[in-house]
């Protein structure tokens, strides 16, 4: 029980503590030209693509005309592969390397890596934050009861406590519509949904858009409701920072993360409380859980 509470406190503190980490991330990027910044941040892009697109739809049971509303708190996490921990940097303007190195990505080892260049010159590549996992928490409001349709909203805005960095903002909107309401005695509930999200950190440090389309099936057995979903995720991310060397603003466009998304989970439907947990196979493999209050 104590360890559970400690973990809950750590989780709730994650966004608050993230302020200095995000500020340091911006400082780390300053030493990198755009291609290397892309290599450094790519695991973050994949992690955001997976976590933001998790725990959105957790049931296909959408009431046709019975009003219901739930306020849900989601925790979505992914674990990184070893291959995500390093990248091969390219030479920035002004530097000619004489060896190739494996430089840490944002989730890689904390030690900087030195790269030798011509005539005894050297270039340092910044260390990473040594992360095994990446976790995002978000509140979500769900309202249903109109023609078998459920509306979903995610929103959170946190001042990161750094005047230069600004805030972290997540905003999402979506709908889910019951398909099984059009069937005679369907063997399980079926629904399709679409959800769009915008995630921003600071003044352009991270600016991401996510879109998910998902078909879901679920069936209630008393209070337990297993569910499976098949969907498609689209994720775009840009990052802006100031290059330390040139003093110029650099804008990096990451390769879009477009991939199929498989989810399998179960939900406990208690009177005013729902708890769900799920596995996700998407840009990264991960898990998610949530707790909802409502009726």
């Amino acid at each position, binding site marked *: 029980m104590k360890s559970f509470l400690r973990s809950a406190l750590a989780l709730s503190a994650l966004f608050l503590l993230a302020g200095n980490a995000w500020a340091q991330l911006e400082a780390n990027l300053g*030493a990198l030209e755009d291609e290397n910044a892309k290599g450094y941040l790519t695991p973050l892009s994949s992690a955001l693509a997976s976590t933001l697109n998790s725990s959105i739809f957790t049931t296909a049971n959408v009431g046709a005309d019975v009003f219901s509303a739930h306020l849900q708190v989601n925790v979505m996490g992914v674990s990184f592969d070893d291959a995500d921990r390093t990248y091969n940097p390219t030479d920035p303007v002004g530097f000619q390397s004489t060896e190739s190195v494996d430089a840490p990505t944002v989730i890689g080892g904390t030690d900087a890596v030195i790269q030798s260049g011509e005539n005894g010159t*050297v270039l340092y590549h910044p260390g990473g*934050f040594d992360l095994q996992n*990446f976790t995002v928490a978000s509140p979500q409001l769900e309202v249903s009861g109109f023609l078998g349709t459920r509306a979903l909203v995610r929103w959170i805005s946190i001042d990161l406590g750094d005047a230069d960095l600004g805030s972290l903002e997540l905003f999402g909107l979506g709908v889910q519509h019951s398909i099984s309401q059009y069937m005679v005695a369907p063997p399980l509930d079926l629904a399709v949904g679409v959800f769009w999200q915008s995630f921003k950190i600071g003044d352009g440090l991270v600016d991401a858009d996510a879109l998910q389309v998902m078909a879901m099936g679920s069936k209630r057995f008393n209070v337990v409701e297993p569910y499976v979903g098949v969907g498609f995720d689209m994720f775009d991310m840009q990052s802006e920072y100031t290059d330390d060397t040139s003093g110029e603003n650099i804008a990096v466009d990451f390769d879009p993360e477009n991939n199929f998304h498989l989810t399998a989970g179960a939900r406990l439907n208690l009177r005013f409380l729902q708890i769900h947990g799920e596995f996700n196979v998407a840009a990264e493999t991960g898990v998610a859980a949530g707790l909802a209050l409502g009726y």
Partner: protein
Amino acid sequence: MKKMILPLAALCVGNLLLSGSGCPLIPSIEEKTVELAVGSSLTLEFHAEGTENVLGGTDSFELDDEIDLAQVVEDAGVDISDVHDIAFVGLAYRVTNPDPNPNRRIEQVDISIARNGGANLEIVSGFEDGAGSAYDFRTLDLSGADADAAVDMINGMLDDLLLEAQGGTPQAPLAGSSTWSGVSSPTGENTNFDWEIRLDISIVGEVTLDLPE
């Protein structure tokens, strides 16, 4: 409470089996020391003008006036006492104000560098490029006869810059100069353009952050 914890525990065990990592849904925060790299630069500006086709110039600098090292690393969140090393990365150049003749070229350019009135060490030799249009920085090949010694000298100046910023006394003054000479073509008409050389440096220091385990 058991109903809440058991599904979470099941997910975590599943994730452990799948990825071999701890549970991402139960993060804990720990203090980590991260090595940060910071870049900085010193830009030297040159003006090429005249009807003579042999051109050149010298730009002098005080390194500690040009680069406020303590401020550079402070802006990146690093205390100057936590800086481990500072090193010379290389040279870049660009034309900022192009010659009126779009076909203008600067050729056979040699660049040398000296510390505190000492010997000029040739760091670049035989460089050539267009000067009839403005362009962004390009890498300058360290092809001079004294390139290795020049790099050592610049690194020595940077070591002294760090020493001074950390409260020590440099081994020699941080004054320096860069001299260039070259040939402008086509000949027989006025040359008038501005160009810059940028000396890039890389700094490594450490910061302590509260991060997920």
